């Protein structure tokens, strides 16, 4: 008796289990969450208008070598062509490597680039870092794009190996006599050096 009850149970399961599996499988796709391919690229309307409004270059990179062998490279997050045909760059940074040794990097929040007259005007709080250990902060810098000529017409505050310094203006260019590139602070320079602070 017990034997055929067992076989009857087995034959019952042989049919019932695959049916249940089939039922689960078929409802699986009905219950899954809707994937709407249309809207999984999130962007805001303003972004589209901005893109349409002016020509824009994202992540521009510009580099070159001057006749004297100094390497110059500019990069920015984007450059937008303004109404008056001028290019406005955002988060601009430049790297100048001098053939005579040493290098300078410039970082600015904003810059107007005029390729026509080989000039870029950096605005916002500009940080200029030099391998001589001098770090300079100013608010306007005019630099040539194809040669080594960086001018900060306004007041410059700097910290360096020789202490903290303020100057009326600053220019980075090659010295006429020995041809080496130098940072020339002028318009009254005031440097304060704290001998006590140096670790002996």
């Amino acid at each position, binding site marked *: 008796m017990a034997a055929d009850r067992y076989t009857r149970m087995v034959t019952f399961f042989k049919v019932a289990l695959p049916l249940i599996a089939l039922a689960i499988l078929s409802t699986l796709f009905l219950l899954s969450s809707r994937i709407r391919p249309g809207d999984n690229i999130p962007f805001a309307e303003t972004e589209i208008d901005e893109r349409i409004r002016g020509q824009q270059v994202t992540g521009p990179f510009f580099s070159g070598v001057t006749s004297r062998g100094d390497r110059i490279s500019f990069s920015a997050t984007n450059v937008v062509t303004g109404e008056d045909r001028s290019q406005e760059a955002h988060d601009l940074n430049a790297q100048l490597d001098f053939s*005579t040794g040493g290098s300078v990097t410039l970082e600015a929040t904003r810059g107007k680039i005029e390729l026509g007259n080989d000039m870029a005007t950096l605005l916002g709080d500009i940080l200029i870092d030099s391998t001589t250990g001098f770090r300079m902060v100013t608010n306007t810098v005019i630099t040539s794009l194809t040669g080594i000529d960086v001018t900060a017409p306004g007041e410059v505050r700097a910290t360096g190996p020789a202490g903290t310094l303020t100057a009326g203006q600053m220019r980075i260019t090659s010295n006429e006599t020995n041809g080496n*590139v130098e940072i020339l602070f002028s318009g009254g320079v005031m440097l304060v050096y704290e001998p006590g602070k140096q*670790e002996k």
Partner: protein
Amino acid sequence: SVAQGTSVAFGTLQQDPNAPVELAADQLAVDQASGTAVFTGNVLIGQGEMRLSAARVKVIYAENQNGIERLEATGGVTLVSGQDAAEAARADYNIESGVIVMTGDVLLTQGTNALTAERMTVNLESGTAQMSGRVKSILQPGGD
């Protein structure tokens, strides 16, 4: 009177060598390759009571680039501290040791009398100065 070495008191005593040093000038040129810094155009070095003016001052850094070892002042130098004044062609101010070495026809004026010499070493901390090399003192006759 000619003497080989004369030591005189110079300026105010106990000048603190760790007092901040101020350099003012018309221009400062920092060479990008070597990093040397040269002040030009009526340069004035000030520390505490001491004032050292010169036409050109070159900054010599300490070896490991942290801080200044000495200042080379050239092109005619005038050192004033308290009511004493000294003139020379050149002065080397070693900031770490607080010693100024003036060379090239040094003229030291203290009140009415004056001393000339080839070389003068001023120790700011102790307020003393050693003059050497054909030291001649010029006494003002007359007076009280």
